[in-house]
């Protein structure tokens, strides 16, 4: 029998999230730069005759590009960026251990400017610890019964399994 610590965020996960954040940051910057370039070109090509059409086209390009950037920033980039920051915190800061019967509840909520989380309750004797786990990693705790959890600021960072 051997105990093994399973990290909720592995090096590969960190690398994958880092790549995702870098890629989308570049894509959004490129879209914004190209849209700005098109708008400047349209403004530069404006004359007395085409001014209303050029203004309309410029506002349209700027608006659509802005909407794309806002959408992707809010729903594609930011969630991964927040999860990456959360994972970096879990991996770099001091941990404590909590041992007992692990129960993953259905209670889930989103912490403002952070990740969506689920409530985990660890019972040890008559006491219980109320912890949180990042929503995207909660499934890993579902099958645990008695376990030792590694906790950082109330968030589950890793758990021990006996192999």
């Amino acid at each position: 029998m051997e105990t093994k610590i399973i990290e909720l965020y592995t090096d590969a996960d960190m690398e994958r999230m880092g790549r995702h954040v870098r890629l989308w940051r570049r894509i959004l910057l490129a879209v914004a730069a190209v849209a700005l370039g098109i708008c400047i070109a349209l403004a530069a090509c404006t004359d007395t005759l085409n001014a209303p059409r050029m203004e309309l086209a410029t506002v349209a390009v700027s608006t659509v590009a802005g909407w794309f950037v806002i959408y992707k920033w809010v729903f594609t980039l930011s969630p991964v960026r927040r999860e990456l920051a959360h994972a970096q915190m879990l991996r770099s800061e001091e941990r404590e251990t909590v041992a007992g019967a692990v129960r993953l509840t259905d209670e889930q909520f989103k912490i403002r400017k952070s990740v969506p989380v689920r409530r985990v309750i660890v019972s040890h004797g008559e006491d219980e610890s109320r912890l949180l786990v990042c929503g995207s990693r909660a499934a890993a705790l579902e099958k645990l019964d008695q376990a030792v959890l590694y906790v950082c600021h109330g968030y589950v960072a890793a758990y021990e399994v006996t192999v």
Partner: protein
Amino acid sequence: MKVLKNILSQLHSFVLWLLASAVFWGWIFTLVTDTSPAKKVTIYCDVPAVQDRLLAAELEKTMPEGLRMIQVHAFNYVMLDTASFDRGDIFIVPASEDTDLLMDLIPLSEGGPTKAYDAASGKGAATGYIQYTDEDYYIYLGSGSAHLDDGAAFAVAQELLELP
């Protein structure tokens, strides 16, 4: 469905961006399509309708050196007190025009006002762009024009008179 839900949750951001974009580029285009009175000649026409952009673009083809643009406006009497109207360079007004306004206008030649449109013959200046009514029209220079000394207002007025 998820995309629609996401969009609705950020609707305020999208609307705000649309407004910001329209205001910002509107301001930029105001800067691009306007300039100081010293670099433009402004024509006010007291007529029912004028193809302002087409006429301005046509006149810009032969505008005097030093000018950046020509602006054409159909005017109404609400404009009479505005500063930009006071600085207008060329005015096309009907024969029945209010004499108070005419006192601020300068005829093109010392011999009296120059006709821009002759109702009897139906011939006049830029009739392809300006819709005249059934009366004579005269062309004047504005007394507040920044282009009286350099002759640009006069040159553009002459060009306007020759336009079909």
